[in-house]
Every structure is written in C-alpha cells, then in structure tokens.
C-alpha cells in the first residue's frame, strides 16, 4: 500500500530557511590504504537541483556522499559546500546539511518523536511547543503521525526511510543528501520515496544529492545524473541523455539483460 506525500499540509518555511546551496567537488581522490576508492572526481551541483549519482555497488558513491557531509576527508582534491570546505567547523555551523542514511540510522533508544526532536532540542532552536509543532508538521508531511510514539524497531523498512527523511526535514536543510533511499524497498514504496524527494525539492527548494542505483528514481526525478564506476565519473549530464546512452557500460548498467545461455558469472570465471 502506498503512503502518498501529504503535500497539502506544510506551512511554507521562510526563504532564509531554504536558501539552497551549491556543492562543488574538485578533483577528489580518496584511498583507504592501498585501495583507491575515488579517482579524480569533479562535478558541481547547482542550488536547488536534484542531482542523482548512480553506479554499481562498491563504486564509491557512499564514500563521496560522506565527503560532502564532512564524515570523510579527501586524500587529495577538495569538496566545497556553499564555497566553504565541507569538513570545516565553519561549514557545519553555517550550512544546514542533512543526510538520509541507507539504513535510516535512527536512534534506536529514542521514539520516532524524540528522533525528530533531537536536532532542535540539542541546538535549542525553539521551545518545546515550537519543537512539537515542527516535529508534528514533518511527520504530517510524510504521513507518519501515527508512528510518533513508536520506536525504530517497531517500524517497517519503508517507514524507517520516511522517518529518516522526516528527521532531516526538521533540520530545515539547505542541502539534503540521500544514500540509497529506495534500496531494500518494494517498487511501490520506492516510487513513493522518489515522489517525496521530488516534492520536498519543489516545496522547500533544497539542493538534493541522491546516491542510488535505482534507474526509475533517476529517470523520474533527477535534473542531472552522474555515473560513477570503479571510482571514476564516467558520465555527467541531463537525465534525458540517459534514455539512449552511447557508452556500452552505461547501457549495460541501466538495462542489464538476463542472459541464461551465457550468464555473466560464467563469463567472469573464464
């Protein structure tokens, strides 16, 4: 059963709260020991854009995302958010960034309500009544009002993702990052999450960077798409270019044919 986004309810936030920011990745390389995970990756994301970064598992997408929020430091190159170094304390203080983790990363010891209330409470953004209003509004947007008192262990995979998005929304972010938001979900829930991401962009004008290998999500909501393979950015362009890609690697990635006569794993063996 789908849970549509409640687009009618949110009170628009102020323009100052939603000043979307630009992201600039400049010649970024990252190695873990001898393994080079990212190799000279460069691209820009414009304010208010939905940028989808695609690529097979293990291509370095999530590591790239962690660089943007400052959880990883580059081996070489740099990542700028709104012109500031992504890992700097100044950037964390000035830019509201939210990352929706692949597994949700909800605080298991807190209820859904308290998960959402944590950020405004810790940063003393408003009083408890104001926090309640913000939290309930975010829950309402994602049709999660009935889950407020539940704990993460009582939620389904799709609900956890929506709670993670709601938690990010409470931060009134200027930059939203999503790590595989539709993985482990059924196709309908995956489409619902895609709709939520697109709606949030429309409603709040945030810059969104989505890491995914979900072709439907990319074709459905992206403004531009980058494709990362083995740590290298092999494609960067508008989503329309992906409909008929010239590069055979991209064709194979986006439209893999199931070949029972000559299966891939046997090709790998030889």
């Amino acid at each position: 059963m789908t849970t549509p986004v409640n687009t009618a309810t949110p009170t628009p936030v102020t323009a100052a709260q939603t000043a979307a920011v630009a992201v600039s990745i400049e010649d970024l390389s990252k190695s873990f020991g001898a393994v080079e995970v990212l190799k000279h990756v460069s691209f820009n994301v414009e304010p208010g854009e939905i940028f989808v970064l695609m690529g097979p598992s293990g291509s370095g997408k999530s590591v790239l995302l962690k660089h943007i929020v400052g959880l990883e430091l580059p081996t070489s190159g740099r990542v700028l958010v709104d012109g500031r170094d992504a890992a700097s304390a100044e950037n964390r203080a000035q830019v509201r960034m939210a990352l929706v983790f692949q597994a949700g990363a909800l605080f298991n010891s807190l209820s859904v309500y308290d998960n959402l209330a944590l950020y405004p409470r810790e940063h003393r953004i408003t009083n408890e009544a104001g926090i309640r209003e913000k939290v309930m509004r975010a829950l309402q947007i994602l049709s999660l009002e009935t889950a407020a008192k539940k704990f993460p262990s009582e939620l389904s995979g799709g609900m956890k993702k929506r709670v993670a998005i709601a938690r990010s929304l409470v931060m009134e972010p200027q930059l939203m990052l999503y790590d595989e938001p539709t993985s482990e979900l059924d196709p309908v829930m995956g489409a619902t999450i895609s709709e939520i991401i697109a709606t949030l962009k429309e409603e709040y004008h945030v810059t969104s960077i989505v890491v995914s290998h979900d072709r439907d999500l990319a074709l459905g909501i992206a403004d531009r798409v980058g494709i990362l393979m083995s740590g290298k950015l092999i494609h960067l362009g508008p989503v329309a270019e992906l409909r008929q890609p010239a590069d055979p690697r991209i064709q194979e990635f986006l439209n893999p044919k199931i070949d029972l006569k000559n299966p891939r794993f046997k090709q790998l063996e030889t």
Partner: protein
Amino acid sequence: MKSLIRIFGEIGSTLILLVRAASYLPTLPRQFGRFVEQCYLIGYTTLPIVAILSFFIGSVLALQAGYSMENFGAKQFIGTLVGLSMARELGPVMVAILLAGRVGSAMTAELASMKVYQEIDALETMNIPPARMLVMPRLAATLVMVPVLAIIADLVGWFGGAIVSKYTDLIAIDPPAYFSALRRFMTFHDVMNGLIKAEIFGFAVVLVCCNIGLNTRGGPREIGAAVTRAVVVSLILILVLDYFVTRALM
C-alpha cells in the same frame, strides 16, 4: 612496531576525547536528564553486586587474618587489617573492576553499536558532538557515583569482617572490639586515599570504554570484540594505575 603505533594512537584518541568531553562540561545543566540516567546506571544498578562482593571480601579477609594472626596473638588487630585493606586497596579496586565488567562493557557495547549502525555519523551530520551528548554525561556521573560506591563497599566490607569475627570460634571478637581496633589505626586520610583511587580508576575505565566504543569499525562481530577489548584494557589499566597512584598517594 605497528602494535606500538596503535597503542600510542589509542592513548592519543582517548586524551583527545577527554579534552573534548571536558570542554562540554558547561552544558551539563541542560543535559541533567542524561546525567541522572547515567548516575542510575552506574550507581544504583551496580550497588547490589558491590554490596554482595564487599561483604564477602571483608568476611574472607577477617577469616584469613584470624587464622594467621591467632598464631602470634595479634587477632585483636583484625579490625585494623580489614579496615585498612578495604579502605585503601580492596574497596577501590573492586569497585573499579565491577565498573569495568558491568558498566564499562555495556557502555562500549552501546556506543560501538551506535557507531556500527551509523547513529554516531547521524549525530555528527546534525552537528551534535558525540563527546557532548554521549561521553560527558557518563564521565560526570562516574565522578559523582564512584566515590559513593567505594564508601558503601568499605562500610559493607567492614561489616562483613565484623560478623565473621564475632561468629567464628577461631576469632570470637565482639563488634565493639573489632570496630575499636578499626578506628584506632585508621585515619580519615586512609579513607580519602581509597576514594581518590576509586575516582581515578572509575574515570579511566569509563573514558577508555567510551573511546573504544566510539572507534569501533565494522559489523556486529566487531561490537563483541570491542567489548572484550574494553574490559581487558580496563582491567590492565586498573592494576597498572593502582601501583602508580598508590605510590603517589603514600
């Protein structure tokens, strides 16, 4: 060489964590709920096992002392021996060991689990420092509750020694005589000495356990490994610190 570098790295990261947590001490009033919760976990839930062990350690100490001292007619000093041993050495060391096994291991497991399941990363992206929210309240609660536990350990241990001294035929010393001997050679300084030791051991244990938990990488298997390592490192640390702190306080 690699192990040596790792050990120095861990000492460095523990000290950095200490400095960071200490810098958030002014936020304690608005984290009072977390502080009280940690006081409950460290103090109240550890109290029964501290009391049981202290009682029997005091009892065994009196029994062994009675057996040995009876031979040269010094059994009237059993109270002194039990009193000083419990206050200066066994009380603080036992409290610290129990803290490592019961509270420290649970803290490491909780923080390691939060790290592995990206809750710590989520805090950092929200610009909520884990040292402020997760470490500082634990350290502050340790500072408050450990001396309380150590005092209770001393009192229960002395009481255990008194009971055994009265009801063991070999010793047969009445409680007034036992406590009179205890008071005669014991000073406030001896008790304070033990409390300072307990405070240092407890603080070190909780700091090390938090640091190991926060630096866990990998999956569920690494959570178990982190807990084992936290307890082993804590036990070694308690005994090493015991020698140096005892020397320093003499």
